[in-house]
């Protein structure tokens, strides 16, 4: 009986914590639906009764959102596309072959993966500026691919290693070429891994702020995170329209949340798998 009460109390505690933790996300959506007059009041409104989508139409009204969206989509697509191809080839190399320099390459990849953008952005700025690619899609994309490829190789390596080489060999015995065996047998089995890595690369490129801030100094070439930051920057000098800011934040966040929920399991296990498997 006592154990059961304790369990119920703990359950209630878990739900309270859940509500506290999700509150900022809820607050974003709630504020995005409320008119600015309501938000200007000194007493917060906790439920979006009488709300509307006006903030969304207003946030979208000036063309800047679409310009930033275009920029973000181009950079993200290029980064994801090349990252997947490069990482896939790299993952096949390290998980299907033993060769001289393999271990050094893996160590290099793991070290590069840990390097913070904050420790390299000055140099990356100078490099991109010297080839006149500031404010361009290409400049940022190249840095993003380089930043995301290491972890993607590491993630895909597990998937490639998970497909038994015996299967390929069996197909080769049945007369397929090595390349044919790989494409017909291994590649389809890798689809989930490729999707997971693609979504990982998407999240990194879509959310990235630091490198974009440095490499896209012009207001005309902003990605969505930079555009969103502009709202807060303005808030220091004038009265902020928080309803619009929250609508804008919701627009930026929703695709990310959807994709994130699809792959989070794999992300967690990828980062700590060494320790979990033990």
């Amino acid at each position, binding site marked *: 009986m006592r154990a059961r009460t304790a369990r119920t109390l703990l*359950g209630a505690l*878990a739900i309270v914590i859940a509500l506290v933790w999700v509150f900022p996300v809820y607050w974003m959506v709630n504020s995005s639906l409320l008119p600015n007059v309501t938000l200007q009041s000194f007493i917060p409104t906790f439920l979006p009764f009488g709300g509307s989508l006006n903030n969304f139409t207003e946030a979208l009204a000036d063309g800047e959102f679409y310009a930033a969206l275009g920029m973000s989509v181009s950079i993200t697509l290029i980064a994801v596309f090349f990252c997947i191809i490069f990482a896939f080839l790299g993952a096949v190399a390290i998980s299907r072959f033993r060769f001289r320099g393999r271990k050094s390459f893996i*160590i290099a990849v*793991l070290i590069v993966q840990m*390097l*913070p*953008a904050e420790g390299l952005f000055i140099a990356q700025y100078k490099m991109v500026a010297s080839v006149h690619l500031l404010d361009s899609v290409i400049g940022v994309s190249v840095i993003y691919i380089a930043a995301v490829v290491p972890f993607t190789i590491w993630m895909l390596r597990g998937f490639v290693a998970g497909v038994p080489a015996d299967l390929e060999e069996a197909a080769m015995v049945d007369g397929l070429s090595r390349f044919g065996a790989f494409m017909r047998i291994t590649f389809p089995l890798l689809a989930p891994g490729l999707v997971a890595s693609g979504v990982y690369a998407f999240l990194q490129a879509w959310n990235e702020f*630091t490198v974009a801030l440095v490499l896209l100094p012009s207001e005309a070439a902003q990605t969505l995170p930079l555009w969103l930051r502009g709202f807060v920057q303005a808030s220091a000098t004038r009265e902020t329209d928080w309803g619009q800011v929250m609508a804008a*934040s919701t627009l930026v966040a929703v695709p990310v949340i959807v994709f994130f929920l699809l792959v989070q399991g794999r992300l967690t296990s990828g980062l700590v798998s060494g320790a979990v498997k033990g």
Partner: protein
Amino acid sequence: MTALVDRRRKNRVPYLLLIPAIGILVIGMGYPLIWQVITSMQEYGLQQQFGKPAPFVFLDNYLELATNPQLWAVVGKSIAFCLITAVVTLAVGVLFALLMNAVGRTPRIILQISLLLAWSMPVVAAMTVWIWLFDRRRGAVNYLLDMIPGVDMNRFNWLESPTTFFIVASIIVIWMSVPFVAFSSFAGLTQVSEEVLEAAQLDGASARQRFFGIILPMIKPVIAIVFLLQIIWDLRVFTQITMLQDAGSKSSDFDLLGTYIYKLGTKSQDFGMASAVSILVLAITIALSWFYIRSLLKEDEQ
């Protein structure tokens, strides 16, 4: 695995496969890194921006850094911020994992969904919400705190003094990082065998003994890795500090290493010093990462 390797082509194929990855890493990371090492040993300021050759000064930039009290203040603040934030994140995350393990299915799933939503928020969007929550006049945080009897938080400006500024920054970073710690630790907890725990209970081990004697040693590897990653990630907080400075003050009292380097490079145009500080950050990161990398390598060898 080696069975597949065609002996004649053994030497070429893997290297060909690695060309694109190595190529992009050399362009995007390698070249900037080398440039940065060289520049950190040059006098590279405003005049060099306009084409004047940069004289080699070898370790002068580093010596200047070592004797610069402002830099040491920033390094000290960054390390304190990083350690406090990482420790609290770890403690809260592990407690949440234990809670998930102790409660029934429904509350557990509710908690997991809530954590997942917080985790998936893009950092810039999360920052706008938090700045709105901490808004001094109309923010929900001041409103709710003010309702507590005896607490006067009406119009309290959180971003005015460095202490409360960094408390807010820390709360935000903790909010965003706890889900990863909680899910990883929970994954570790589910590996702890029920039978062992039951056997220990039958043998008269108390809940406390079971936690410290069985559960903790079994999830220790996960916790160690997660803690290390938190330290590395919290050392490089940049977006959060930049955006809080947008809403508050840009004075150097509010800088951590990331924003300090950014200002050295963009405002003072002192690329030599900025490079030297960057190298310092990279060196600290690599030193800290080594244990993490070693544990991942062990996994590869299996």
